């Protein structure tokens, strides 16, 4: 009888496919700091893993994932540096970043080397959750 259940489980998995991606643990690339700015072709993002451009935030994220040598994880990011506040709604509503990621404003994109340590030592009062809350409040008003 046990075999009937095992066969049924295998059958269901074959029919609907596993809902999870397979990851190679050697190729996991967790992002720690994301910088984003408007550029000529849309949005440019810079991380420790690399940089990418796209028509909007989602496209830039997708392009970075394509060009990276492994699997990029954005929900590990601890800081978001935005050059131009108009980008913020698009970024926070995408759900890519964790709610407690700190938000910083800057004039231009900088070298990501050592940026995470610097920003960690100079914490921000504003988080992704704060921005999302403020945006919802504005929408309701």
């Amino acid at each position, binding site marked *: 009888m046990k075999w009937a259940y095992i066969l*049924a489980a295998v059958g269901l998995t074959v029919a*609907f496919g596993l809902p999870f991606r397979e990851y190679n643990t050697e190729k996991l690339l967790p992002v720690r700091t994301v910088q984003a700015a408007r550029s000529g072709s849309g949005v440019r993002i810079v991380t420790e893993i690399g940089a990418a451009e796209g028509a909007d935030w989602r496209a830039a994220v997708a392009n970075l994932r394509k060009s990276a040598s492994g699997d990029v994880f954005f929900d590990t990011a601890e800081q978001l540096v935005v050059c131009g506040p108009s980008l913020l709604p698009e970024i926070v509503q995408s759900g890519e970043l964790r709610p407690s990621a700190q938000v910083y404003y800057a004039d231009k994109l900088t070298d990501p080397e050592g940026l995470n340590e610097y920003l960690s030592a100079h914490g921000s009062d504003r988080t992704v959750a704060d921005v*999302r809350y403020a945006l919802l409040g504005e929408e309701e008003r």
Partner: protein
Amino acid sequence: MTRDAEARQRYALGFSAFTVPAILLLPRTGWLWAASFAAAGAAALAAMIYLRRRTAKGLVRLAAETAAGKGALLAALLWNGLMLGRIAAYLCRAYPSGSAFPLTGLLLLLLAVYAARKGAGAVLRTGAIVFLFLIAFYVIIMGFSLPDLHLSWLKPGGKPRWTALPAVLAPVCVLYLSEGEGAAGKPALWLLGGVMLALLAALVTAGTVSPPVAALEPFPFYTAAKSVKILGAMERLEPLVSAALTAGGFCLLGTLCAANGKILSIFLPQPDRIAALANFLVGGGCVWLSGVVSEGVFAIGMTIFWGVFPFLTLLLASRKNTRKFLKNVLTKSGLSDKITERVRGSKSKTKKT
């Protein structure tokens, strides 16, 4: 096994099953409403446990004593089938980043059917083991979340989602499994624990992602878990939230499958194999069907089959039992004859006048 130990297993299974609405549904309504809903559910459950203690038979056997009760049991069986599909579909939300629908729900349903096929005892034992894992995990995750909450987001508020209210009655399904003498044990701490879990889950969610965002997210507690810091470092605990919800969901589905088996045993002499097949086929089919049924219909159905029907059955049975008990006491003490004589005497007097 002693009656106390069996009762503890039952409460542990009910608690594990309750984690599904407490973690998945209630945080969307705000902490005040979540706690109020959970307290209302606990009060209803406490009343049913009290009545169950005054009856000598289980809920299913009591209902099966009358034709109307049998009809209601058949309706409950069909309803539970639909709910199996609904819960299995809902549990796919436990993995928001993947396309978990419908495989996660169907595999959990299959596992629950297998456990229930082994008997209600197997489901009870699993529930007791799962409870230990769930309580340890939720205490850790909520404990580490509390220091980072935004206090300004914890003002009482939120909008009540009335359709989520009857979901707090989910642990009532455990009452369908009990047989023989009324439940022993001390349910007060278990019920209080359930209310505290719902309150803390909603508090942590509201304080981390803010109440309006929590109301919009399909699984806000998962989003809140992304921000948990342990010793100052952010940890990725959200996959464990998915695992905990899966374990709780298995307990809820297993309870429903076992309850359906108990109900079918009233109508069929050897219901085990048919119950397993029916649970999987009906529940599996309803994974898709439940998507077209409105939230309001589910709310009404849960209120009837997990609230009104068990409560009325136990209430009527306990009243009948009380009458029998009083009759026995009066007969044994000889008071019954005296009362009869007095009644006859008073009747004859009224005739003379």
